[in-house]
């Protein structure tokens, strides 16, 4: 790396803290530039063995060595929330991507779900703490009693699409 951008320290410490860097953050603007993108990917790979993914709207580090178990909990939470929103006749994707949620109302909504017995055994059970820890990763933005999902949520929707497609392929092959 010949020169470091002035945001270098912030970029590295944010990513190492497990935070998503999201458009329109100025940090994201730096990562998006081709001259830096490849350098940073190389930097994290060589220094830490981590994978830097720079998507259209967000960037994050991943590593199969440092596994974040709570990701599973988060996907469970999101799956249940989508399911409940869909049941109540709402367009779950618009609601998740654009809407604002009341923390205690959302907790109640999930607790009424027949699937709460699964969530109950996960870190979602302590709901405020759960929201806080994902807010610190920039996946959720908390304002007072409300929270919103950031653009990073698309990563988890992508995951669901991949699961569905893989399952579909599996079913087609077995037929």
């Amino acid at each position, binding site marked *: 790396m010949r020169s470091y951008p002035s945001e270098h320290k912030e970029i590295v410490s944010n*990513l*190492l*803290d*497990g935070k998503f860097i999201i458009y329109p953050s100025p940090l994201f603007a730096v990562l998006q530039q081709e001259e830096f993108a490849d350098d940073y990917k190389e930097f994290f790979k060589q*220094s*830490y*063995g*981590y*994978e830097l993914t720079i998507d259209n709207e967000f960037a*994050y*580090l*991943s*590593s*199969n*060595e*440092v*596994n*974040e178990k709570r*990701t*599973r909990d988060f*996907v*469970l939470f*999101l*799956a*249940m929330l*989508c*399911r409940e929103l*869909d*049941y109540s*006749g709402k*367009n*779950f*994707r618009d609601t998740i991507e654009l809407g604002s949620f009341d923390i205690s109302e959302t907790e109640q909504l999930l607790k009424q779900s027949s*699937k709460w017995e*699964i969530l109950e055994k996960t870190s979602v059970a302590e709901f405020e703490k759960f929201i806080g820890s994902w807010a*610190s*990763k920039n996946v959720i933005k908390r304002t007072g009693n409300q929270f919103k999902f950031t653009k990073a949520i698309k*990563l*988890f*929707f992508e*995951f*669901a*699409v*991949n*699961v*569905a*497609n*893989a*399952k579909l392929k*599996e079913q087609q092959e077995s037929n």
Partner: protein
Amino acid sequence: MSNLNISGKDIVGFLFYHYDFVQKAFDISTPDFIIDSDRFHQLIAEHNTSSERKVHLHKISTDLKFCRQLPTGEYKLNGTYTTFLEFVFDDFVLDLPETLKNRYQAVFNHFTSLQTATDETKAILFIREIIKVIEDFLNDIQGQTYRLLRDTESLKVNAENNSDLSIRIQKANYWIDEYIIPLNTILNIDNPNSVINAIIQVQRYASEKRILADTYTLKREFEKLYASSVNAKAELDQTLSKLTRELLPLLERIKSDSIILSGFYHFVENVDNPENYIVPLPDLLRKVRANVISKAFSNEAEFYIDQFNYKTPEILYEETTEEIEWLPDSSYFKEQLLKEKEVSNFYQWCFDSLKEHTENITLSKFFTVSNLILEEDLVAEYKDETRFDIQLSDAILKMPKVKIYEKLSE
């Protein structure tokens, strides 16, 4: 007393008085409008027990021509009725776009014939035929679009489980591929064989002819054709925008949303068996206070550190309060010394003078005072080799007997 001949009023009356029966027959028989014989008889029997006005099979089939029995024994509803009933019940059966395509192909054919017709009577017939075909086509396509929109709305309604989700995805895919895209092709203005293009051609031709035609009658007919084609164009534009701007995105949306839900469904179902996720979860990073090391590097370091992994003794440090030692002010003692004019045993004097101020005479205190011996304005004389002891709190000094006095100024 009923008339021998069936009039329009009888037909309308039948539909009015037996509305529920007609609707049931319609619902049961869609989409091909064929009902199993037993089922039809049962339907009539049910109706006749609950209603004062009775339905007679013979009358509705022979006189009213509501239905006819097929060679297979089934009953088929009359197409004239069903077309009207589709309109009445707002329930249109989806035709394959192929069928629609064939229908509007007729517009092309009649139009070609019209352009070459030499006879005024024939030209008028073709014009009327074109207007009729366009009208039918518009009705069809509006009905179909309406039906698609309504079904799509109902498709949006929630799926309870994964099989419902799969059906949703399948249906959305089917409608997109089999209906919307072909309908789009038929209606697409960029496609030279599209119905829109045929209608535009008709419109241009009619626009010219309504002014330039040979006779007044012909001009009037072309005027009607022109109006019909202008109207058709406007309506088809609307339909097209419904299809492409509402229906297609809606279906795509339903499809992709259902895919997400079904992916989540599989994930939740297999949450206790992560190996069944098929697709691994994103390996997000936990907050790490990391140093610049990779895993391999860290293993090596751990191995190295293990070599020194013994228990170090615990050391407890007693907390000591540090005292700042008081040191005598040498200038004060010099003053005292000078007052004496002459001191025969300097070191003893030092000790005694200090004693007046403190009990605890340490080396450092003693030397602070005894260093006065080095002052330039003092003269030290010592002859005696003998030493005497001076007992300090932290040492015993053997000192010579030194006489000291002030140097006389020259």
